[in-house]
């Protein structure tokens, strides 16, 4: 909303935002980051608008009306600020990259990080100049290169501050190419980094493909989603630190998650044990490319078992997919952007059973599309929770869902839980000899999947040879 207000005001049209109590500060901060010096806001007192009945919402509108009219017909209190005259006069809050901003013991450094909200609450590795320079030894790019601008604070992510946050997160210098690719991915507009601070409090999941997995010691086997391996954990932690320090997410200010999630370990694919081409090939890359994929993962399911012959496994998986993705997360499929990318992670054992029975990944996707379904009334219920009176028929009429979702009025008709089979993103990872799998639910335009090829520096050949 802050951006909607900012860009409307930018073209000379007054814009007022109706904001639930507790969100005013967030709206102002994000609008200020867009450049808007004063924001026209009318605050709706508790209770939250979502829990009010239709009649109560109408009463609230009547109560707020005079305030809305006043905001549209009154000049704001703050006079416009002048644009900064030159980049050579940065704000006091920002420093030149190599400036020393603090000096102290390990404990004092960490107190400083916590006081400034520069971390995730865990101790950091002090980002000293020599450690940052070590990280920079694993890229051929200039430290000043701007990789992208990260909302909501609209600050530049540079090669330099990627290195700094990598050090702080505990990454090894040789992880630097992966870190750069991750930031490239989240800087893409398609990813929607500006949505990370939303009520859902979703966390990005990082997937990794290519020879770099073994070169850098990522685990892709047993316990892959446990916090154990340095590479899997610190690379993911690095992303969290970037979201705090570069994107500018702060709880209660720019981050309004209801609950939130901890960051997940990097999910590296067990490419050597998979019977199929790497999952990165489904994103248009060549097998053998080093690829990082970042997307939202708002739910991570139980590690469910599947049994029997291939068809029994598929029935089990389809049931779990419909159960996991046919619940609360379902409305994102209709409401947020027209595309979802749920991850179906199969163990190498289960993937092998399916492949030996002749199933390709496309076959598995088609099977899931046909069989992982929910009754229409369940989907209608979830839509109505988000928007009063919304149901599948209205969504189809509005063009947000295909006709398959409204072929009849039977509330018990079974409907898909994704738009098309290709949306299922199949990854092979985890304990190689267990018949366990899991599902990660993705929530549409909030963290839509983006993949980037990892660029390796010249020094890589000396360290790791020509592979990758």
């Amino acid at each position: 909303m802050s951006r909607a207000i900012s860009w409307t005001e930018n073209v000379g049209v007054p814009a007022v935002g109706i904001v639930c109590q507790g969100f005013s500060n967030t709206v102002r901060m994000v609008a200020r980051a867009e450049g808007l010096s004063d924001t026209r806001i009318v605050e709706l007192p508790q209770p939250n608008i979502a829990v009010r009945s239709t009649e109560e919402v109408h009463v609230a509108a009547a109560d707020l009306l005079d305030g809305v009219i006043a905001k549209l017909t009154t000049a704001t209190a703050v006079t416009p600020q002048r644009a900064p005259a030159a980049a050579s006069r940065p704000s006091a809050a920002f420093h030149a990259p190599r400036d020393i901003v603090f000096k102290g013991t390990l404990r004092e450094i960490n107190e400083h990080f916590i006081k400034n909200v520069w971390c995730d609450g865990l101790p950091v590795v002090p980002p000293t100049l020599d450690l940052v320079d070590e990280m920079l030894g694993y890229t051929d790019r200039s430290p000043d290169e701007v990789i992208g601008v990260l909302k909501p604070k609209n600050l530049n992510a540079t090669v330099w501050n990627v290195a700094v946050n990598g050090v702080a997160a505990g990454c090894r210098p040789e992880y630097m190419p992966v870190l750069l690719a991750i930031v490239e991915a989240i800087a893409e507009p398609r990813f929607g980094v500006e949505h990370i601070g939303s009520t859902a409090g979703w966390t990005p999941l990082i997937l990794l493909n290519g020879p770099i997995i073994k070169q850098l010691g990522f685990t892709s086997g047993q316990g892959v989603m446990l916090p154990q391996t340095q590479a899997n954990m610190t690379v993911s932690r690095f992303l969290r630190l970037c979201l705090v320090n570069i994107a500018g997410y702060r709880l209660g200010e720019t981050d309004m998650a209801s609950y939130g999630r901890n960051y997940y370990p990097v999910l590296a694919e067990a490419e050597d044990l998979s019977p199929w081409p790497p999952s990165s090939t489904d994103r248009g890359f060549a097998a053998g490319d080093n690829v990082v994929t970042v997307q939202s993962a708002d739910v991570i399911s139980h590690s469910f078992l599947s049994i029997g012959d291939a068809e029994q496994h598929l029935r089990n998986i389809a049931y779990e997919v419909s159960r996991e993705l046919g619940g609360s997360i379902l409305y994102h499929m209709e409401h947020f952007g027209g595309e979802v990318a749920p991850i179906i992670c199969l163990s190498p054992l289960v993937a092998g059973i399916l492949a030996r029975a002749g199933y390709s990944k496309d076959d598995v996707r088609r099977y899931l599309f046909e069989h992982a379904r929910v009754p229409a009334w369940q989907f209608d219920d979830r839509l109505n929770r988000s928007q009063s009176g919304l149901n599948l028929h209205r969504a189809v009429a509005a063009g947000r869902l295909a006709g398959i979702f409204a072929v009849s009025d039977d509330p018990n008709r079974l409907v898909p839980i994704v738009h098309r089979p290709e949306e299922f993103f199949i990854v092979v990872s985890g304990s190689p000899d267990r018949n366990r799998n899991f599902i990660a639910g993705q929530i549409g335009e909030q963290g839509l999947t983006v993949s980037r090829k990892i660029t390796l520096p010249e020094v890589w050949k000396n360290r790791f040879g020509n592979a990758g």
Partner: protein
Amino acid sequence: MSEPVYEIVSPVGATPAVTSAVARSTRAIAPAPPLADLNGKRIGFIWTNFRNGDILLAAFAELLAKRFEGMTFVNLPSGKTLNWGTYPDKSLGEVVRDYKIDGLIAAPGC
């Protein structure tokens, strides 16, 4: 034995250079001048797709139409069908101009 002392650099992101295209888009935005009144005005509505925001906006339309003469209302698209100025898709500012909106009310729902 004394503890080691470390000198650290900042992990915070960098301010955009003034000359960059992005920086131009994040320069100070002067708040728009107010409307003299709402008679005959065209008001755009933005709803961010969360519960009851649409109902609130519809209620405003009804109330405003009763209080002022000749008002019209336009529901603008929300979410990723509309960008907020720095993305390659059509920007909200352009849409506001295209629809000849005089004022905007944004309601999120929650």
